């Protein structure tokens, strides 16, 4: 038992150790890495993944997956831009409607997974493809730009020296942590992901929990999409294509078990920073972007592999 505890704590801290090693290594390779301006750039880049990773953490805790979040971000990019530019809608209203739409896409995922019973990987894959098509139809394949004054603040503004997206990310992580640790929803997520049958027999309405989790995943992706839109200042139907890959990597790297039931928000924070550091560091080192893809693929395989090997050894 004591032994278990030691391993548990080591695993908990190991991820931070990896982050430190990575930072030191990149700094040695290129001292510019640790420059405050680069650190802020890194954090701003990371913010989009970070915000989206909170919903994904809930989804993976349940043992499911959400492949639609990249598309949700892009879709929000387009509709929010469209409403502001082509319809002349008030900025705040456009953002609110966009977030509602993102949540609705999540609810649609929930419907397919929970009520219909389609495996999450397929249901969200379908959503991914369909809404990508819809986004392209809305914008006619062209980027939309020319946003009202003030919209850029969300993605490009600063409070003191801290970029606003980073603040939004920090608040989101705090909310995520609060939901997981202080509310009964958090308890339900762990229970359902750990043992769905027992959770059901303990009175948890598993179907409702799934709806909620996919809806939250949609909402957080929507928010990430808004931040991205504001940062790039241009609505683009392929703005976040493939982002689900990075977000999933952040979450599993952070120690959330891909089969559900286990993981912490703090780990996901570390996982997100590691992905950010990797991407930023590789750019600074002038590593070819194709090679970057190879590295990212290996990182995902290693993160999940580590989790699986641990599971296997526990079973034996």
């Amino acid at each position: 038992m004591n032994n278990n505890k030691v391993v548990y704590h080591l695993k908990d801290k190991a991820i931070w150790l990896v982050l430190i090693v990575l930072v030191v290594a990149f700094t040695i390779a290129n001292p510019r890495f640790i420059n405050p301006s680069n650190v802020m750039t890194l954090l701003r880049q990371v913010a989009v993944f970070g915000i989206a990773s909170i919903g994904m953490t809930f989804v993976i805790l349940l043992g499911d997956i959400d492949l639609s979040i990249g598309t949700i971000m892009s879709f929000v990019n387009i509709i929010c831009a469209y409403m502001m530019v082509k319809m002349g809608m008030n900025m705040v209203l456009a953002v609110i409607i966009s977030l509602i739409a993102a949540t609705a896409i999540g609810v649609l995922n929930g419907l397919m997974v929970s009520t219909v019973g389609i495996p999450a990987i397929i249901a969200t894959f379908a959503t991914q493809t369909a809404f990508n098509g819809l986004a392209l139809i809305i914008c006619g394949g062209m980027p939309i730009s020319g946003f009202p004054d003030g919209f850029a603040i969300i993605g490009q503004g600063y409070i003191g020296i801290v970029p606003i997206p980073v603040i939004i990310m920090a608040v989101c992580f705090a909310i995520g942590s609060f939901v997981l640790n202080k509310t009964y929803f958090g308890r339900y997520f762990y229970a359902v992901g750990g043992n769905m049958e027992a959770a059901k027999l303990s009175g948890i309405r598993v179907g409702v929990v799934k709806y909620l989790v996919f809806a939250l995943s949609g909402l957080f992706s929507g928010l990430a999409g808004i931040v991205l839109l504001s940062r790039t200042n241009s609505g683009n139907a392929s703005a976040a294509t493939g982002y689900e890959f990075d977000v999933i990597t952040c979450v599993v790297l952070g120690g959330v078990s891909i089969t559900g039931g286990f993981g912490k928000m703090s780990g996901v924070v570390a996982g997100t920073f590691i992905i950010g550091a990797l991407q930023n560091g590789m750019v600074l080192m002038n590593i070819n972007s194709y090679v970057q893809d190879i590295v990212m693929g290996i990182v995902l395989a290693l993160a999940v592999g580590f989790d699986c090997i641990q599971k296997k050894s526990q079973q034996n």
Partner: protein
Amino acid sequence: MSEEYVLELEHIRKEYPGVVALKDVTLQLKKGEILALIGENGAGKSTLIKCCSGAVIPTSGKIKVNGKEFTSMTPQLASENGIAIIYQEFNNVKELSAAENLFLGHPIRKGIIVDKAAMEKEAAKAFDRLHIKINPKELMKNLTVGYQQMVEIAKAIQQDAKILIMDEPSAPLTSKEVESMFEVVELLREQGVSIIYISHRLEEIYRLSDRILVLRDGEYIKTLITKDSEVQELIQLMVGRELTETYPPRGDCIKKDDVVLELKNVTGNGDRNINLQVRRGEIVGLGGLVGAGRTELAEIIFGAAKKQSGQIIFKGKEVNPKSPREAIDLGIALVPEDRKRHGAMLGISIKNNINMPIYQRNSTLSVINSKKEKAIAEKYRENMAIKTPSLNQLVKNLSGGNQQKVILGRWLAADSELIIFDEPTRGIDVGAKHEIYKLMNDLVEKEGKAILMISSEMEELMGMSDRILVLAEGDMTGEISKEEFSQETIMAYASAAKSKVEEA
């Protein structure tokens, strides 16, 4: 001597860590006979036949097939030596034809091409030999369960099986199908095939078998000649163990007029027309064999399975729980049989496990009242005497007995008034068993709960219950009052052989 027998198991012993599943079991099978293998749940029948098939390696003992001696079998070796087993779950491919299934694994070929026509021709011959009428071209999925079983048997014979072991072959069949299966089995006996026939249904055993081998608690008890034996003797042999365990006594605490649960003609989930009552302060035992429909009944009451018709009356009001959540809110709890899969949530803490059903009640705007959460967990740790250094301990690190106490604590915390126990002490060591029994006594005596207890252990059933109801194949076959408790009566009802006992 050994020439007379086609299969001999000598002094077979099988140990699992902490358990001896088979102790010195000897079995002899003659050429062209049907040997019935009987025993209660857990008597070791399945383990014994798995020793013959190679699925289980005996710890010690010898297996002789046609005089050839082996210390253990492998599936390959078993089939080479003409041993075939018909399991309850068929090994067939539903999308292929009867003929293709018959030759599954070794199809007739013409070069590298499978010769369908030849297989169909051979299959027709094989079915003919067993007097069964199946179109070899018919897809497996279109055949009834009875015919699918026939294909299995034909397949075994086609592969030259001389020893056929059938594990509860009649269980999935309708009575008409059973009759055709008997005819096939009798035909095989005439053709010189030796058969080991496992069944709970005593009438079948009398109808079919030449000899009967009785196992009990992993031990060989006796082999009888069927026509010289009597049902009562057989039942006695199956259950006749000494009652060794002592059960904690409890006072008379039954509130006669306070019926907590009443079922009226409840049908569904495999059960038919079940009527029962559980009163406050009473422990009602639910006996029967595995698969008799007891767990299924519990699922209906707990809202985990659908009821087709009939009424559930809880505390005087008709209720119809459609989910466990609704049942829990009414005050019904289920302590499931498979603790690890359905009961405890192993990966989370004791505190969370105990509070799980009542988190919503103890939250304000979805934020958990953590003081209350802790206080409740602490209270039931004390009440249940859960041995743990911390309430944050993960449940997977607890012993079986302590896990069971966590689950019990959970239901008490949820203010349940009716607690259904499904095999309350399965996989729990002797000392902890006693503690669970005491807790159950306290529940009815001090807390005024009502308990419905499903158990396959005769002693537990008789030691703990105020009354025992017995189910057999989805029907309620008997109700036994405390004065009439005996293993023989329960067993007779459970094998639905009541009429035979009365005749005898």
